[in-house]
Structure formats: C-alpha cells, structure tokens
C-alpha cells in the first residue's frame, strides 16, 4: 500500500520494447492479446460457415416438399451447423474475449500460463480444421448429439463421424486448458486491492465458465472415446445387443450438454452486467446477487441434465426430480434479468449499439427463459420435445441470447482492441436488422413445433399453415444474416477508417480502460491499487479531487499511447 504514491493516476504504457510485427509474430506469440484476436477471428470465420449452413437449411425449408437439398446433405448441414456454432463459435468466442480482456480487467500483464494459452488456441484451430476437412469426403450426419446407434460404424460408416469425435477431443482439450488458465489467472494475478467482492462481473462469469468446463468437458471426452472404441476397436459400450446401453450415451452426453448451455451463456450474462452500468451511467444493481446467481446456476447446471431426456425410458422419480431442479435454475436466471432492469431503472441511458444489443438480449432471452419453463414441465415436454418448439427455444437462448451478447462485446471492446471506434450508424442498422430478423425467424418456429413438425426433417407436407410459417422463418433468417453482414462490414471498415477511440471512449468502469488502445505488450506500466468494483470511476474522482477540475478522461502522458493506435 505504502509504495504506491503516484501523484495523479495516469495511463502510461511505454517502458517496453517495440512490439514485434509480421506473420511470424502471430504464429509464435504467447501474448494474451494476440492470442485473443486470433481466437476471435477464427471463431467468427466458423460463425460465418455455420450461418451459411443455416441459410441453406432455411432455403430448403422455405417451401413444402422442396427438392433443393437431398436428405443426406440436409442431415450433414444440421450436424455441421449445430457442432460449429457450439464447439467452434460460442464456447471459444468467450475464450477469445476472456483471453484478451481478463488480464486487462484484473490488472495482470498476461495469463498465468502464456504458452499453454497459445496451445489452447492451436488445438481449437486444429479441431476446426479436422472437422471441416470432412466436407471433402463425407461429413458427419448424425446430428450434433450423435446418438448411437445412428453414430455407430454400422449406421454411419464414413470417417465424418470420426472427424466429429476428433473435433470434440481437440476443442474439449483446448477448452479445458483455457479454463485452467483462466482460473489460475483469476485466482493469483489480480491487482492489489481487487478482492473477490471487487472482481468485475464479467470476470466472475469467466470464473464460473472455467469451473463448468473443468467439470463437464472430461465427461464428453470420455463419452466420445467410448464411441470411438465402439466404432473401431470392437467394444460394445453403446450396443444393446452386446450388453451395452444407448442410455449410457444419453446420460453422459447431457451431463456435459446442460452445463455446456451455461458455459455458452454465462460470460454473456457477465458482458451485459458490464455494459449496462456504463451506458445507464449508474452502478450495477445488486452486484452480490448477480455474482451469487452465477455461482448458483453453475451448481444447479449439473443437476438438470435429464430434462433433455424426458421422453426416454426413465423412471418417474427422475422426471419429477429433474423437473424441480430445472424450475429452480429459472430462479437465479430470473434474478439476473430483474437486476439488469434495476440497473437501467432511473439511469440516464445512452443508446449506443453495445447497449442496444444488451437490451435486445434481455428482451429475447426472457422469451427463451419462459419457453424453457414450458419444456421443464415434463408432461408438456412430451409434446414439445424434438419439435420445432425446441429449435425455437435453443435459438432464443443461444442466438438471440448468447450471440447478441457476443455482438454487444464486439461493439463495446472493438475500440480497445483496435484503437478505433466502429460506426454507430452501421451498428444500429445491424442491430435492428438482427433483432427483427431474429424474431421473424424464430418466434414462428414455436408455432411450427406446436403444429406437430419435428426438428431435423428435410421436408414437410403442405398441410395447415406450415408452408406460410416456414416461409416467414426463411425470410427472417435472411434479414438476420443481412444484419450480421452489416456488422462484419462495419468491423472491416472501422479497423482502417474508424475514428480514433482514445484509451476510454465510453467513460467505463473497469481496468481494461486504464491503458492505451490497443494496449502495449505489457498492458500497464503501473498497476494501480483497486478500491472498488469501479476503479476507473475512482481514478476520475481522485483526479478531480487533486486538480479541482472536472475531467472526462484519465490523462495519457505524451508519447505513450496514441502512437500505437495510429500505427494500426
């Protein structure tokens, strides 16, 4: 405490060697920021691939009894789409953001294990390449849940299924190494004064994300290893004719699969909890409740897996137990939503694109949460399970939910990563296209499911209003895609011509803004002492107190930061 006597807090980051440049600097880097950017670029490429697969499926379903895509290709498309979005986009995109911002937010100079960090990224890329290489032979077609016996060698003889297994292994290992790294970094490398009660809420959720990964990923790794030995080495773990059990797969898959849902959404919750206070210009409402609810969700996430198996042959007592635990998990999730509204309440809300994506997320995620309650009522689930209602539900929580928060994070953190602001006009256009496109695509899918259309079918008969509903959904999907395209154009353009952002364009609260944009290799020359959950506010107040002037920005000494930004 006594050693820190800076007269006035100021941003300074220049006591380091010149940053290395060129492509070799990228493939050899152990810098958390470069690794973070590689994660983000890679995962967005996979997002575009997965999105293209979705558009092809919507094209096929745009008309009844359509013959555009044959059944085999259709099965390959939904398998690739689901697997890509889950294992190659939503889970690793949070690892990308956490890589870049976690050390900055807690005042660390890098991750705890920088080389293991690089390994995490390269394993992810290897997993993605192995998986996508299968499109040159035969891609997998048993769905992202790959239930045996359909995924067994007898029914899926092609190597595509094996490519899927290797993808799970490689991305799983990547996630586990990343999670261990995040946990170690958070536990050991926080700035002085940053107690658990002053940890930014995004960091809280990355901590919970890491714990969930460490417990859940080994289970799916084991499950797919058994599938691999069943396929190639003559074992019978899932083969009922030889004493194996199909239900073994279902239990192991969903024991991983449900925590996986929270792995995908929790950092998004954290993101919203960071962005809302900045643009509502008031502290987050109920910090402790939000942090506690993340931990509660993590615990309950391991008790609800069988709600994915309500129609399977399992005893009533299991159904009733899992229904109760699934209801319970709605409570901490609801608490978060109330706290976010409480954060907006009596604020002075500035409608930036990042904030719009957060508010759009809350509006959409609430619907996803409510449809989740329908699915938790197991007798009701007997009607809704495996129908388009479930497709709608999963996209309300993952696409309108997690992906909207990813976009909020892009708009919020882009200036820090590149030193330049994104266009707000294009950003808002992108948001409204995505918001309405999303609702058009997925709201009607609840009705499609209630009308009896099962999921994963390549065609449907022209009965009732199915043709009209599916057409609406298809048109919505293209509006949604257009909105995403606008953001991609916005990002590509802003990297070159965006307005210079400066260190702290949003007057934000957390420590990543206490450095130049983009940050120097060492992040901070001086790591300040943390006195609250909003250190930047403390610094501004401190400067105001000492200089007697009202300030907008924490000052940057000449020659330290802007050089890096303008050279980009």
């Amino acid at each position, binding site marked *: 405490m006594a050693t820190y006597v800076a007269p006035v807090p100021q941003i300074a980051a220049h006591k380091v060697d010149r940053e290395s440049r060129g492509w070799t600097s990228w493939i050899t880097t152990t810098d958390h920021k470069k690794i973070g950017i590689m994660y983000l670029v890679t995962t967005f490429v996979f997002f575009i691939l997965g999105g293209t697969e979705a558009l092809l499926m919507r094209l096929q379903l745009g008309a009844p009894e359509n013959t555009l895509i044959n*059944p*085999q290709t259709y*099965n390959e498309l939904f398998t690739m789409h689901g697997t890509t979005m889950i294992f190659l986009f939503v889970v690793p995109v949070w690892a990308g953001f956490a890589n870049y911002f976690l050390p900055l937010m807690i005042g660390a100079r890098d991750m705890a294990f920088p080389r293991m960090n690089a390994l995490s990224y390269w394993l992810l890329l290897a997993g993605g390449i192995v998986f996508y290489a299968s499109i040159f032979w035969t891609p997998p*077609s*048993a*769905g992202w849940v790959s*239930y045996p016996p*359909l995924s067994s060698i007898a*029914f899926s003889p092609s190597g595509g299924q094996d490519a899927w297994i290797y993808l799970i292994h490689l991305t799983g290992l990547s996630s586990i190494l990343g999670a261990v790294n995040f946990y170690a970094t958070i536990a050991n490398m926080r700035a002085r004064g940053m107690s658990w009660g002053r940890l930014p809420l995004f960091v809280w959720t990355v901590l919970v994300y890491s714990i969930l990964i460490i417990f859940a990923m080994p289970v799916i790794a084991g499950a797919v290893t058994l599938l691999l030995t069943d396929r190639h080495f003559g074992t019978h773990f899932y083969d009922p*004719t030889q004493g194996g059990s*199909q*239900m073994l797969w279902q239990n192991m898959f969903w024991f991983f699969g449900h925590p996986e849902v929270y792995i995908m959404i929790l950092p998004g919750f954290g993101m919203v909890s960071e962005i809302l206070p900045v643009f509502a210009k*008031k*502290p987050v*409402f*109920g*910090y*402790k*409740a939000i942090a506690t609810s993340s931990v509660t969700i993590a615990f309950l996430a391991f008790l609800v897996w069988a709600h994915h*198996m309500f*129609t*399977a*042959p399992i005893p*009533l007592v299991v159904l009733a137990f899992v229904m109760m635990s699934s*209801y319970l998990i*709605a*409570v901490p999730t*609801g608490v978060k939503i*109330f706290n976010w*509204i*409480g954060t*907006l309440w*009596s*604020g*002075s*809300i500035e*409608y930036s694109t990042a904030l719009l994506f957060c508010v*759009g997320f809350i*509006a959409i995620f*609430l*619907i996803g949460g409510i449809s989740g*309650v*329908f699915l938790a*009522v*197991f*007798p*009701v689930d*007997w*009607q809704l*399970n*495996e129908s388009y209602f479930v497709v709608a539900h999963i996209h309300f929580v993952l696409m309108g939910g997690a992906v909207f928060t990813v976009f909020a994070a892009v708009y919020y953190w882009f200036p820090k990563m590149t030193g330049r602001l994104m266009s707000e006009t294009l950003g808002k256009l992108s948001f409204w296209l995505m918001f309405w496109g999303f609702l058009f695509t997925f*709201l009607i899918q609840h*009705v499609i499911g*209630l*009308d*009896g259309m*099962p*999921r994963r*079918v390549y*065609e449907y008969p022209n009965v009732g209003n199915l043709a009209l509903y599916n057409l609406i959904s298809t048109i919505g999907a293209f509006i949604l895609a257009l909105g995403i395209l606008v953001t991609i154009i916005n990002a590509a353009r802003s990297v070159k011509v965006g307005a210079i952002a400066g260190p702290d364009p949003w007057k934000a609260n957390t420590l990543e803004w206490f450095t130049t944009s983009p940050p120097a290799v060492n992040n901070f020359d001086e790591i300040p002492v943390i006195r609250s959950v909003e250190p930047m506010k403390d610094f501004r107040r401190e400067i105001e107190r000492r200089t007697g002037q009202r300030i907008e920005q924490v000052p940057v000494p000449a020659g330290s930061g802007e050089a890096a930004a303008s050279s980009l």
Partner: protein
Amino acid sequence: MRPASLLAAPGLAVAMLLVSAPGAFAFITPEAGGSPNANSIDTLYKLVLYIAAVVFVVVEGALGYACWKFSAKRNKVATQTHGHTGLEIGWTLGAVAIVIILAVATLLKLGSIRNPPNSGAEAAASTTSVSGALYAETERKLPPNKKALEIEVIGRQYIWQYVYPGGAKNGLGAPYSYEQMVVPTHTTVLLKAVSMDVVHSWWIPELGGKIQVVPGYANYTWFKIEKPGLYRGQCANICGQGHARMIASVRAVPPAQYEEWIAKRTQEISEANVEAATQRSKLEAGSGTGRVLNP
C-alpha cells in the same frame, strides 16, 4: 421511431395476440382432442401459458418502460443506487412462488396424463386382460380393471410396424400392419414401443406426448380415442436419411369394424404364410420360383 418504442412493439404484439381471442390460443397451444392424455397435457400447457403471459407482459413491460422513461433525453442525471435488498429478496421469493405453483399443478395433473382409464362399455371385444408389474416394467401403467388392447410398436429405419394381440401361443402368427395402425374407438390402447435399430420417437400429436424408442429398452404410452378418424404423426427423433418420411398414422374405427379388420388381417397373414410355406417347399425341391407373397 424511438429505440424504446421499437423494442416494446413486439412485446405488445405478442401480448395482444395472447389476450385477443380464444382462436389465438389454438395457434399457440399443442395439438390435442384425440385422447384424454393429450387433452390433459393441453390443459397443463395452457396453465403454464397463462402464468407465462403475465410474467412476459410484466417483465417486458418493465424493460420497455425503463428504456423509454430513463433514456438520456428524458432523464439527464442518473440516480446512483447500488441495489435494494428488500426488492431483491422480494423478486427472488416471487420467482420461487411461481415455481412452486407450477410444480403443484404438474403433479396434480400428472395422473390423468400417465394413467390410462378403463375402456368404455362399447369397447372392442378383443380387449384382453393385461398382466402388470413384470420387473423392469414399473413405468408401464395399466387401467384400473387391467383390461386393454395392447399393441407393440416396432421402430426401424424408416417404417413403423405394429403387432396386434392374437396368433399362436408361441407368439407367432400375430396380426400386424405397417405405417397405419388400426384401433377400435372407446377402447384403451396400450402401446409398448421397441426399436430394431437406431433411436426413433413415436409421436401422434393429437393422441398425447411422444415416447423415445430406444434399442434395448421398452417404452410405454397409451391413448383412448372416442371419435373415429385418422390421426397423423411421424418419427420425431433423427434416425437417418429417411427420417422425414418415417410417417405414422392411427385410424380409429368403431369396435365392430375393428374386429372385422383384425380378423381379415389375421386371415390374410395366415394365407400368406401358407403360400410362403408352399413356395419354400417347392424351392427346396428345386422346382419353385422362390416368389413369396408379401402380405
């Protein structure tokens, strides 16, 4: 339009849709009307829907109001609050209360969904006594008088087969049909579903919920149809290339007509078996064509 009003618009639209007309409910409720269990699921669904509608309107309303009322234009200075313990405990308990109501409602309604009733007085004569409580069949529910028509549903890529009671004591020669199941009205029909290959899922929306058909396991459900008619459905679990065309239907006919149909079906299958045996012996004698009539 202002961002806030743009946000509130879809909320209002859905809310209006929910309260406008009873017709709107058909639009957002599951298929029902064929069998009492489907109707009970529909009732339970509607109960959840009413509660959900209230939660939806209140929360989206609060969000929309906050976005409109507290925009930087209308509210220049933010009030610096950190939370409100009473309020936070209040809404946590409120959420718990809703959860308890849902749980109680589900358990109250569960009996009429899971437990089959007795057949009506005019039920088919071929309704037989069914034995219960074999081990590993604890999830198989029987009507109170233990009398029902028990049909075995067999899933395989990509066709449903149904085996009806009847035939010889060794289980051979039982009448069967593919794709379309024929059942008598006013009769409790118990289904036992098994798979010959991969996982399938049996689902006729108007006759109740679906059951996953898992190789190595038996799964059970039931229905009781009052109105003659055709009830359609299809396999609901991805089972391979032909999944979308693995359709199923249940044709409910008056009991007398069912007896006729099942007798004719038994007759056809027995004739085909005799024909097949003849062909086989001819084939064995080296003189046949090997042609087998497919029933």
